[in-house]
C-alpha cells in the first residue's frame, strides 16, 4: 500500500518541481475553463456578458489567489523557494564581483589547505582496513618493557590461535619481506615484497580472491611442503597483464618454485598503510624467507616476527578479549620463563595500533590538520567579516524587504543561501587546491627498496569531508551577518543609507574577528617556524659524517640468500666482494653494514646488561639500537672513533667478542668512568659478555626528528647477517663506481642480484632535506596563507571604517585637523586590534610549542628566536595593511568628503 502510494505521488511531485511552467499553464487553463462556463451560466440567466463575467470572477474570488492555493498543495514550496533563493543569491553576488571573488578565493584557500592534511590523517589514522566489517578486526600484541607493540613468535601464535575463544579466526602475518622473484628459473631475480600469512588469512578477513582461490588450512600445516602463492592485484596487473590463466603457473621466489593459486582482489590493499604486498605465501613456507639465520622461526619462542590479527566474535566485548589474552600471557610467562619473562599481551583496536606513541607520521598529520583547521577558521572569519560589511551596506534593501512583509526567518534563509552559494563555490575551488596539494605529496619519493606507496588520496572520504566543511563554514560565515542584518530598526533603515549608530557595540563583532585573525595567524607562523627550528635542531648534531659521505659514498644492498647461498658461502661472498672492490682504482675504502645511518629500514634492538651497573629494581635488561658492521665501516662512513679502537679483521668468530658503542651510550651507563674495557652481556644476565673496545662519535642514525640515542655496533664476523649493504667510498662521484662494482659482482657470481643501489646523497636528501622540508613547507604554507588572510582582513576592516567615516573625516579636516592627525586617528584602531591579537597569538604560540615539543621534538622551553622573528613580521605586515587605507583617508579633500553621499 505505502509503496504503491509513492509510485503514484513521486512522479507527480517531480512533475510539479521540474515542469513548473507546464503545470502552471495547465492550472491557468483549467481555471479559465471554469470561469468561462460560469460566465456562460450567467449569460444564460439573462445577465449581460459583462455582468456575468464580473459575477463569475467575484464568485471565484480572484484567479491568482486560487492558483496560489492550488500551488500550496504541491508540497514543493520549500524547494522552489530554495531554487529561487539560489537564483537571487547568484544575482546579488554578481553585483559585487570583487567581493564575491575574494570571499570564494578565501574559502577555497581555507578548504584547500585542509584537504591535504585531512587526506594524510585519514590514511594514517582513520581509513578502515579494506575488509568487510573492518571494525571487528583487532590486533593482538605482545608487550614488554621496551616495546609495547611487539609481535608474537610462531609458537606463541599457534598457542593463541588454539586457546583463545573471543574471536572468529585469528590470523598472523609477517612484515613485508623482500624476496627475489623471477618468472622463470635461470633469470636474475628481482626484488619484490612478500607477506607470509597464516592459512586462514583470507578466509578470516573475508577477502574473496579475485581469481583462483585463497589458501586452504592444510596448505599451512606441513612445514615447507606447499609452495603456493597468492598474487597481489597490482603485481598481477604489472607483471602478468591481469591474465587470469596465471593460476596454476609456477614462479620462482627466493630460488624455489611456487604455484600460483589465486589473485587477491583490487580492493584488498593489505592491512598496513604504506606497503602493498606483491605475494602472499603461507607461513609454513617461512623456511624460504627467513631473515635471521640465528633464529629458528618455527621453534624459537622469542623469534617474534608475527603480527596477529583477529576478528572479534559477535557478543564478545573488547575488554573480555583483552582479559582473556592477558591471562594467556600470564600462562606463557609461567610456562616459558626463559623467553617470556616480564612479557604481557594485550588487544588493540585499529585506531590504537595506528596512533602509537613512537610513530611520528600520524602526529605530524594531527598537527597539520589542527593547524589547517585554524587556517580555515581564519579564512571563515575573513569571509564572515566581509559578508558582515556587505550586509551592512544592504541595510536599506533588507529594511524594505522586511517592511513589505518578508518574514525574518525567510530573510535569514535567503542570506544563508547566499553564503551557501559562496561556500559551495569556495569548496569546489578548495577541492582543486587540495587536489594540487595531494598530488604534490604523491610526487615525494622515498628511497626504499620496495616502492613505498604514498597512501594519500583525494578520495570520496576526503571529498565529502571537504564539502561538509564548506557547508559548515557557510553557516559559520553567514549566520552572524544574517542574524544581525535582519535585526534592523525599520524606520531608520528606510530613512538612511547607513544606519550605523556610532556606538561601539555594533563593531564589536568585526573587531573580535580581526583580533582572532591576527592571533591565529601569529600562532600559525610561530608553528611553521618552530617546525623548521625543531628539524634544524634535530639535524644539527651528528650529521658531520653525512655532509661528507653524501658526495662520496655509494650504497648497494645484497642478499645472497636470493641466490641460495648458505651461511658459509655468504661469508665468503662478502669477504671477496669487499676485497675486490677495494682493489679498484677510484675506491678509497669499502665496508659492510646492515643498515646505513639515516636508512629507512630501522635498526634492530638488542637487549643487554652492562657490567658493574646497578640495574634498577624493576628491570632485568636494557635495550638499545644496534648495527652489524665490518672493520672498514667507521672509516668509510666517516664516523670517528673517539677513544679505544675500531673493529679489526682479527675480531672474527674465534676471537674475543667485542663491541663498539657510541658516546651517548658510554655517557649514559658510565657517566664518570671510561667505558672502554667495560663489558656488556648481550641478551641477558646469563649470556656471554662482549667487551667494549671503542667509543664512536654519536651520529644521527635514523630519519626521525628525535635527538641522539644509545647505539651499539657489533662486528659482522662475530654476528653473521645475510642481508648487508656494501658501502663504497670513492675519490670522485660515487655513481661512477656503480659499473666497476657491478663488474666485481658479476665476476663473483653472475646470478647475484644487486638490490637497491644509490649514492648516499639520496638517503641524505630524503632524511635531511626533503623529509623535513615537506613538513616545514606544509606548515609554512599554512602560516603564509593565514598571514595573507589576516592582512587582507585587517585591510578590509580599516578600509571599510574609512569609507564609513569619510564625512566625519572631512569635517575634522575642514575644522583644522592635519593629515597626520587623521592618519593617527584611523590607524590607532587597527593597531590596537593588532596588539590585542598579538598577545592572544603569543599565548597560543606557546601552547603549540609545548604540544609540538611533547609530541615530536625532544625539546623543552621556549624558543625565543622564533617569536623575535615572527612577532615583528606580523606587526609589520598588519601595520602596512592598516596604513594603506589610513593614508588614503588622510588624503581626503574636505570639500569632496562633505559632499559624499
Amino acid at each position, binding site marked *: 500500500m505505502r509503496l*504503491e*502510494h509513492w*509510485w*503514484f*505521488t513521486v512522479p*507527480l*511531485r517531480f512533475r510539479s518541481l521540474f515542469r513548473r511552467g507546464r503545470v502552471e499553464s*495547465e492550472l491557468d*487553463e*483549467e*481555471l479559465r*475553463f*471554469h470561469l468561462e*462556463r*460560469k460566465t456562460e451560466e450567467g449569460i444564460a440567466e439573462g445577465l449581460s456578458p459583462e455582468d456575468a463575467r464580473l459575477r463569475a470572477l467575484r*464568485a*471565484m*474570488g480572484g484567479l491568482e*489567489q*486560487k492558483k496560489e*492555493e*492550488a500551488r*500550496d*498543495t*504541491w*508540497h514543493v514550496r520549500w524547494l522552489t523557494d530554495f531554487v529561487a533563493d539560489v537564483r537571487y543569491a547568484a544575482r546579488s553576488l554578481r553585483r559585487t564581483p570583487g567581493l564575491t571573488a575574494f570571499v570564494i578565493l578565501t574559502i577555497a584557500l581555507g578548504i584547500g589547505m585542509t584537504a591535504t592534511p585531512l587526506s594524510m590523517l585519514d590514511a594514517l589514522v582513520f581509513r578502515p582496513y579494506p575488509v568487510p566489517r573492518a571494525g571487528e578486526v583487532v590486533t593482538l600484541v605482545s608487550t614488554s618493557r621496551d616495546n609495547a607493540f611487539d609481535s608474537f613468535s610462531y609458537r606463541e601464535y599457534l598457542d593463541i590461535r588454539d586457546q583463545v575463544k573471543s574471536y572468529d579466526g585469528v590470523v598472523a602475518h609477517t612484515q613485508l619481506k623482500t624476496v627475489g622473484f623471477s618468472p622463470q628459473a635461470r633469470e636474475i631475480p628481482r626484488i619484490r615484497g612478500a607477506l607470509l600469512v597464516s592459512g586462514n588469512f583470507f578466509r578470516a578477513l573475508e577477502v574473496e580472491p579475485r581469481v583462483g582461490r585463497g589458501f586452504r588450512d592444510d596448505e599451512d600445516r606441513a612445514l615447507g611442503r606447499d609452495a603456493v602463492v597468492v598474487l597481489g592485484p597490482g603485481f598481477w596487473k604489472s607483471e602478468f597483464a591481469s591474465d587470469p590463466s596465471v593460476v596454476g603457473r609456477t614462479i620462482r621466489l627466493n630460488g624455489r618454485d611456487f604455484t600460483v593459486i589465486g589473485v587477491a582482489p583490487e580492493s584488498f590493499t593489505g592491512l598496513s598503510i604504506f606497503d602493498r604486498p606483491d605475494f602472499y605465501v603461507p607461513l609454513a613456507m617461512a623456511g624460504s624467507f627467513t631473515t635471521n639465520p640465528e633464529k629458528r622461526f618455527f621453534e624459537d619462542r622469542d623469534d617474534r616476527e608475527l603480527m596477529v590479527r583477529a576478528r572479534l566474535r559477535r557478543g564478545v566485548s573488547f575488554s573480555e578479549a583483552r582479559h582473556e589474552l592477558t591471562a594467556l600471557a600470564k600462562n606463557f610467562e609461567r610456562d616459558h620463563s626463559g623467553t617470556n619473562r616480564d612479557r604481557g599481551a594485550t588487544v588493540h583496536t585499529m585506531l590504537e595500533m595506528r596512533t602509537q606513541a613512537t610513530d611520528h607520521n600520524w602526529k605530524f598529520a594531527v598537527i597539520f590538520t589542527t593547524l589547517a583547521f585554524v587556517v580555515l577558521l581564519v579564512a571563515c572569519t575573513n569571509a564572515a567579516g566581509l559578508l558582515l560589511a556587505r550586509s551592512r551596506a544592504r541595510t536599506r534593501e533588507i529594511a524594505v524587504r522586511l517592511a513589505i512583509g518578508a518574514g525574518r526567518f525567510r530573510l535569514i534563509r535567503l542570506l544563508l543561501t547566499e553564503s551557501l552559494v559562496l561556500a559551495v563555490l569556495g569548496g569546489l575551488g578548495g577541492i582543486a587546491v587540495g587536489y594540487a596539494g595531494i598530488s604534490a605529496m604523491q610526487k615525494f619519493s622515498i628511497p626504499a627498496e620496495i616502492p613505498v606507496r604514498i597512501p594519500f588520496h583525494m578520495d570520496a572520504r576526503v571529498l565529502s569531508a571537504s564539502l561538509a566543511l564548506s557547508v559548515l563554514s557557510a553557516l559559520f560565515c553567514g549566520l552572524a551577518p544574517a542574524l544581525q542584518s535582519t535585526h534592523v530598526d525599520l524606520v531608520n533603515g528606510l530613512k538612511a543609507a547607513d544606519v550605523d549608530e556610532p556606538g561601539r557595540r555594533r563593531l564589536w563583532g568585526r573587531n573580535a574577528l580581526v583580533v582572532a585573525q591576527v592571533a591565529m595567524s601569529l600562532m600559525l607562523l610561530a608553528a611553521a617556524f618552530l617546525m623548521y627550528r625543531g628539524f634544524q635542531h634535530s639535524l644539527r648534531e651528528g650529521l658531520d659524517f653525512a655532509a661528507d659521505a653524501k658526495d662520496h659514498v655509494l650504497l648497494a644492498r645484497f642478499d645472497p640468500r636470493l641466490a641460495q647461498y648458505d651461511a658459509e658461502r655468504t661469508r665468503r661472498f662478502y669477504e671477496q666482494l669487499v676485497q675486490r672492490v677495494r682493489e679498484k682504482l677510484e675506491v678509497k675504502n669499502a665496508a659492510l653494514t646492515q643498515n646505513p645511518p639515516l636508512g629507512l629500514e630501522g635498526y634492530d634492538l638488542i637487549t643487554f646488561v652492562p657490567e658493574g651497573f646497578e640495574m634498577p629494581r624493576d628491570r632485568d635488561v636494557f635495550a638499545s639500537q644496534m648495527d652489524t658492521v665490518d672493520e672498514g665501516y667507521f672509516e668509510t662512513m666517516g664516523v670517528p672513533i673517539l677513544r679505544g679502537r675500531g673493529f679489526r679483521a682479527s675480531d672474527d668468530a674465534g676471537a674475543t667478542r667485542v663491541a663498539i658503542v657510541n658516546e651517548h651510550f658510554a655517557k649514559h651507563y658510565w657517566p664518570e668512568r671510561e667505558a672502554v674495557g667495560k663489558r656488556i652481556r648481550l641478551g641477558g644476565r646469563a649470556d656471554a659478555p662482549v667487551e667494549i673496545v671503542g667509543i664512536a662519535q654519536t651520529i644521527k642514525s635514523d630519519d626521525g626528528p628525535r635527538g641522539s640515542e644509545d647505539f651499539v655496533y657489533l662486528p659482522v664476523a662475530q654476528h653473521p647477517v645475510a642481508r648487508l649493504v656494501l658501502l663504497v667510498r670513492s675519490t670522485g662521484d660515487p655513481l661512477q663506481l656503480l659499473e666497476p662494482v657491478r663488474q666485481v659482482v658479476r665476476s663473483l657470481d653472475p646470478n647475484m642480484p644487486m638490490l637497491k643501489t644509490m649514492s648516499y646523497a639520496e638517503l641524505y636528501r630524503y632524511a635531511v632535506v626533503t623529509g623535513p622540508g615537506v613538513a616545514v613547507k606544509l606548515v609554512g604554507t599554512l602560516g603564509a596563507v593565514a598571514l595573507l588572510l589576516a592582512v587582507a582582513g585587517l585591510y578590509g576592516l580599516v578600509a571599510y571604517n574609512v569609507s564609513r567615516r569619510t564625512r566625519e573625516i572631512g569635517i575634522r579636516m575642514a575644522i583644522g585637523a592635519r593629515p597626520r592627525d587623521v592618519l593617527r586617528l584611523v590607524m590607532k584602531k587597527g593597531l590596537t586590534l593588532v596588539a590585542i591579537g598579538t598577545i592572544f597569538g603569543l599565548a597560543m604560540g606557546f601552547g603549540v610549542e609545548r604540544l609540538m615539543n611533547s609530541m615530536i621534538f625532544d625539546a623543552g622551553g621556549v624558543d625565543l628566536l622564533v617569536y623575535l622573528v615572527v612577532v615583528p613580521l606580523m606587526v609589520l605586515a598588519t601595520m602596512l595593511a592598516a596604513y594603506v587605507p589610513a593614508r588614503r583617508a588622510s588624503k581626503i579633500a574636505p570639500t569632496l568628503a562633505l559632499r559624499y553621499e
Partner: protein
Amino acid sequence: MSKPADLVQGTLDLLLLKLLALQPLHGWAISLRLRSLSGDVLQVSEGSLYPALHKLEQEGWIRAEWKQTENNRRAKFYSLTRLGRRQLESETESWQRLSSAISAVVQLSEA
C-alpha cells in the same frame, strides 16, 4: 456565503471521489453535478474545489487528463485511480459508521 453549502469537514473528498467513481468529469461539471445531485443543498465554492482536486491528485487517488468536452472545448477531466477506489471504499465505510452513529444519537427520543 451560503450556509447550507458548508460541508462537514472532510466530506468533500468523499463526495468528489464518489462523483468521479461514477464517471470522469472536469471541474466545472463536478460543481454542477454536486449541486444537482444534492438538490441544491450541497454547494462547493471554486476556492475549495480546485485545491481539493489537486490534493486528491497529489495523493494519487485521482488522475487528470486533458480531453475534449461534448462541445469541443479542451478541459481537464479527472477520473478515479485504483488507489482512489480503495480510498473511496474505506471513506464510505467510515462515513456510514459516523453518520449512523450520529443519527442514532440525534434520534434518541427525549424522555
